Every structure is written in C-alpha cells, then in structure tokens.
C-alpha cells in the first residue's frame, strides 16, 4: 500500500487537522484503499465512534453504488459531532470518503476533497492507459 499513489493522496488529506479519517471506499468495504499506513494515522478520537461510522458509511456506499451511474456526485451526512463527506469517483462505485469535525470549515475542506478526487481520477486514467498499452 506504501507505493500506491492513491494512498499518498489520502496521506495528504490526513495532514489536515480537521480530517480525522479518509479512504476510497466501496460497498462492503471491498477493495477499499486506505492511507499508506492503514488506519494508524487516523486521528485517535475517531476510534470511539469508528464502529458506528463504518456501518453508516457502508450503507451510504450502497446508495452510491446504486446511483453513481445516474450522476450522483456527492453525499454528506452528520453523525453526532462529525460530518462524513463522500465524493463519488465518476464511472465507478467508489467514493472518496472523509470524516471531519462538525465545526470544521467544510467549504475549505470541500476544495481539497475536490482536488483529491481530481488527482485520484488522473491516477486511475494513467493506470488504465498503462494497462491498455501493455495488453
């Protein structure tokens, strides 16, 4: 996972004080991509609510897998003192997910989430091109 460029994009997001955890997730958490050191760099306060966040997140990822093909781009929900932001990766059933503090400046984080989504799309396109070239 250390050499995965998408994991490095997630590493960058986690450096923001208000982003407690992030990943590229998919329904059932199959093939989810975590930061380079797995969940170790998630902020400790997330541990207390991780189980409930994970369950609600998974149900939202089901919604995403159903509606991403018809143009669903973004979902947000508030859980206790936290916001969970989903940015759908187009043409996939995956979403970039971040858990942030409810009092964080979401507008600023939204800009960096959008930059991360664009970077992930670029990395995937490059990988596809490489794959296409070798087959």
């Amino acid at each position, binding site marked *: 996972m250390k050499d995965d460029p998408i994991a490095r994009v997630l590493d*960058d997001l986690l450096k923001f004080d208000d982003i407690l955890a992030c990943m590229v997730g998919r329904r059932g958490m199959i093939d989810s991509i975590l930061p380079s050191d797995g969940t170790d760099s998630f902020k400790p306060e997330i541990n207390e609510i991780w189980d409930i966040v994970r369950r609600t997140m998974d149900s939202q990822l089901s919604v995403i897998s159903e509606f991403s093909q018809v143009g669903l781009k973004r979902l947000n929900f508030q859980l206790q003192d936290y916001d969970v932001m989903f940015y759908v990766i187009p043409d996939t059933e995956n979403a970039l997910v971040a858990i942030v503090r409810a009092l964080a400046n979401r507008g*600023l984080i939204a800009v960096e989430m959008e930059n991360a989504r664009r970077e992930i799309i670029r990395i995937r396109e490059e990988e596809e091109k490489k794959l296409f070239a070798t087959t």
Partner: protein
Amino acid sequence: MNTSKLEASIGFSRKWDAREAGREVAKSAIKDLIRPPNFFVLFSTIHYEKHGGFQELLNGVFDILPHNTPLIGGTVSGFSNNYGVYARGATALAVSYPHMDVAIGYGKNTKRNPKKAARQCAKMIKEGLKDSKYENKFLLNLISASELPDMPPFNRKKIIKSSLSIKLLIRFFSFSQYVLQKGAGRDDEVMRELTKLFPDYYMLGGGTLDDEKNLRNYQFFNNRVLKSSVVSLGIKTKYKLDVCTTHNMKKTDINFNITRSSKDGRIIHEIDGKPAASELQKRLNWSGDLITNENFYPTIYYFPLGFSSDDNKNLGPRIIGAIYGESLVTVISAKSSYGSILTIDGKGLLKAIDDNLKTFHDKPNKPKFGLIASCTARLETLEEYIYQERERLLDYFSEKPFIIFYVGGESTYSPEKGLKFVNMSFNTAIFWKEVN
C-alpha cells in the same frame, strides 16, 4: 529578444514543508523571467505555521530570490491561479518590467491604531516612489483581518449563548482589541486613511486570514513575518490598470434601522428597538434554533446585512461573523442606521465575476496580469463549485497570469469610483499595455 517588455509569472507550491515550499514557489515564479522581478507578492495558507513556520517559508523564498527583491504578502484561506484552486499551499506573482517603479511599506498595530499604521506605511511608499515619473499608480494593501481570542468561549464558535453575561463578554472583547490586539481587524479604517493619503492611486485590498478559525493571521514584508500590520506594495508604471468591485447581492424587502450598536458601529445590539439576533431571525421567518454553529456558513452567509458606510442608500454587504447573545458581530463599521437584508444564491455569486470582468471588455488591450481579492465567504459557500469561478478567470486571462486570493474584508479604490469596502465581493486589479 525584446527585454523591455513586461514579464509576469505565477509561482506555486503544494509542498508541506515551509522551507521547501518557499523555494519551490520562488523557483517556479521566476523560472520564465529574463530579468529579476521588480516585486514579488506571496500568498500562503496558514498550514505552514505547523510545518516549519512562516519565517522558514520566507527563508526558502529568499534562498532563490535576489535578496533585494521587494516582497509583500500574507496568509489567506485559499487561492486560485492558473494551476487550480487550493485551500492549502503557497502561490506568488512575480513581475519584471523596466518601466516600473516599486516601493513597499508596512505599518504596525492596525488593531490598536489603524490610522497611525496607515500613515507609517504610507510614508515608506511615498518616500520610495517620490522620484518616479510614471503616471499610472497602484497600491496593493494586505491588512491583518479580525482575530478572535484563542480561549473559551470564543474558540471556533460563531454562536455564543454564554453563561457569562454577554455584556461582560463584549467588554472583554474591547479590552482584548486594544491590549492583546485580538478583535476587529479595523482594516476598513486603515483603508479609509490610505485613500486620504493616496487619493490619486488605484487600490486593491484584503484582510489576511487563517483557515477561517479567525484565531491568527500573518503579513509578510521582505523576509519578515508581521502580525496586526498592514503591508503595501506601491507601483508607478507605464502600464494601464483599473480596479472593480462587484457582489451582485439583491436587496430583499426586509428593511430595518439599527437602534443600538457598539461605539464603532461593528456590533449591532438592537434593530428597530428590539434585540438584534431574535428580531433578525423573526424577520427572516427562521425558527430560533435554525442557525447553529454547524450550519452557520450555509445559512447566514447567504443573507448578509446591507449597509451604507457613507450615508448614502447604496447598500453593500457585510457579513455577520458571529452572534454573541443577542448581538450581531460584523467586521465593518456602518455610519448609517438604515439597513436591509441582502441575499444571493450560487448562480449570483458566479454572475458577480461576469459583471466584474465585463467592465474591462472595452479596454484597448488584453490583460497582461491580474490580482483578485475575493471574499473567503464566497469560497466557503461555493465549496467545490469554486472551480467554476476559476474557469471564468481562465477564459478571460487565457494564458496570462492571475491569482485570486481569498481574504476577509476586501476592497478597491479608484479616484473615479471611490472606496468600496464590503464583504462577499469579488475585487479585481487588472493591468494591460497602454496603446502607443
């Protein structure tokens, strides 16, 4: 090779380490310049405070730049340039042109004595440009914006229903303003003084910020990091320029009179003889608990107060930055007691850009470079749709360099249009070649 033409270039870094970011932003800004820059304007987000510090950022810049390069800058909540839109990183504009004189200045203690700070800064600019013969005059002013004391109950809360008496809280706020220089930016007062001292200049201004926690912000002057200061870049050049402020706010039919406010007019206690916060929500038909700390931005920011700072009925937006008890805390002082609720939607925020750029369409030449001060509340409310703001600028500037820097309390001044100091606005300073 024509070495007498103007060269302008954008630098940019997303590195986390302050020193490395400083080097990268300087290196990328000057890589395409034939001559050393006449000036360097640097904007950075607050993140470098924890990743080496701003002194290291500046040290990194001057590892690359010639040491006598005039530099001003400051912290912003985000920026947009020819590369993208960012809420983290550093960007810079470097300009090199033989037919241009440049001076930089600074004034300290803007929150305690804004007029004195403006005069201190003006003296340096006037001295630096006294022998210049060029007729087009420009001043970029970056001023420390409002800062909250970093202690409970302020911290990150926009709404305080404190168990402490609100009166006591506001009294503490006044003490903090003068002694700790934590409080209202008073950047509008700095600007008013500067316009008196430089009535024939064109000006662009903005309040430096952090990531909207409003706890601290910094200004850069050459290789020094300042606080509670104004830093200015004065230019006299052969190049033509103009400035423009647009906001596209619509007036609602909710009008009121401010019947009790703080001495400086920034904190509104009563409107139409009733406690301000409750009355405002009643007029908006909002239930008492609708505005919360969590949804403060997407609710209240779309409904700024319309106010007049010059006793006329031309209303400009000012944002409610916080609600303490029944008092509405704003960052701009109003002279007139008459007010109105203004409103806008996302489309309207974007149309403010079209309206602004339209005013430059009749200029004889295409833009050579531009600096744009946009309200951080526009960034906060547009979120990722802010990319649509940048696309409009890319269309207009084509390959030419521009930076939109997101600030709190933004302004333009021109001898023809006077001072526009408002919130939620889009403010341009655009330069083009004169017609021979």
